[in-house]
């Protein structure tokens, strides 16, 4: 029992550290290049795709769990993983695989955003 709790706590620490480190890397890049948030998101997602394709991201996901899947690189991981899994079944599934894997996230973003847009107004900011 104690061992299990320790393992869970360790997992949280690993998720925190890895996720935090990915965000900190992005922040360092922003600090030195003043890239906008949209560009940062695209670059990190592409980095996730590339690392997954090279087989380097899977170990990180196994190591840090949500620490590796929650940052936008995890989205890239999902896309690339879908493609790699689909490739085993043939070209059609290799091409449709990425979006199929990412469909939950994209659907959620679209549906929830539309709901929020119906519910909320933009409000003025003061700082």
């Amino acid at each position, binding site marked *: 029992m104690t061992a299990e709790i320790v393992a869970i706590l360790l997992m949280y620490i690993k998720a925190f550290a890895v996720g935090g480190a990915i965000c900190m890397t992005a922040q360092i890049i*922003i600090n030195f290049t*003043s890239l*906008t*948030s949209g560009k940062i998101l695209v670059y990190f997602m592409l980095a996730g795709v590339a690392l997954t394709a090279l087989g380097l991201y899977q170990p990180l996901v196994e190591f840090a769990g949500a620490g590796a899947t929650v940052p936008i690189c995890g989205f890239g991981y999902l896309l690339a993983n879908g493609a790699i899994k689909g490739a085993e079944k043939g070209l059609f599934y290799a091409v449709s695989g990425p979006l199929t894997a990412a469909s939950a996230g994209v659907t959620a973003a679209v549906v929830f955003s539309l709901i929020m847009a119906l519910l909320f107004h*933009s*409000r*003025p*900011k*003061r*700082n």
Partner: protein
Amino acid sequence: MKKGNTIFFANKPKVRSYAAICGSKEREGVAGRYADVALADDMYGESTYEKAECKMLSNAVSLAVEKGGLTDGEVDALLSGDLLTQIISASFAARDFQFPYLGLYSACSTMSEGMLLAAALVDGGYAKNCVAATGSHFASAERQYRYPLELGCTRPPQSQWTVTGAGACVVSSQSGAVRIVNATLGRVRDWGVTDVNNMGAAMAPAAADTVIRHFKDTDAQPEDYDLIITGDLGALGSRIFKDLLWEKGYDPSRHVDCGEMIYKVVEDEFQGGSGAGCSAVMMNSYFFSKMQAGLYKRVLFAATGALLSTVSSGQGESIPCISHAVELEAGYDG
């Protein structure tokens, strides 16, 4: 009379009345104490930011006309503009009035361009009373030039905050404690700054260019003025402006910047106010009332504008800037 790029007004048109409306953030600073209306709510009871901006501008104009004891029929023209595409705020605000309207676009220097054109019309005898007005709204400007308000992005430390507010003044051939003596027309200057967040650095050369040409044309020295007011250079831009004046051998110690003054605390995150409303609010509240009270006698007002659009910056163009200067005088004899 004209010398260089400076027009000397023979009849010295007067600033008959002025009015300013400022938003809730500005309310806490200098502008809040001197503006006619300080809003508690930046929406101003409207459903969109653009409508709120339009309403501020419209109300500033009608307040200025009212304070000058004029009726719609006595105003010969409204010279107005704003930052939005197709200057919608100004044009839509002009729907509310019976007098003619001339739309201007000079980004944040619209206030001084409006004043100088109004003075030229009045001085030439083509008009008796002209209204110069402009305004801006933080949210509408942010929406057009940057990102949606709710997007969680960080503001770089050199960025400025667009002022929510509007100002208007009536330039008249008749009464008024402040008069417009001359005006220097701006040239578009572009020293290659491409960072859209660093407006101060982009605009400082244009401001320095206009102010120095003004000194040359009028054979004046900076010491002859009580104040040299620039529009919205912000803290960083003001420093560059001062350096540029020093470099040419002019003493910049009388220089103040509306953008630097308008907020209560210039937080270290950003450099102060910007936007057309910045100089419009400060001139039409604090500065004109202090001039009327006799605190400042001779003032040079050079609002600065960055003439960029999202398209031009998207294509990697640098930022061309302009600055028009008007010299104001108070406490004259007669």
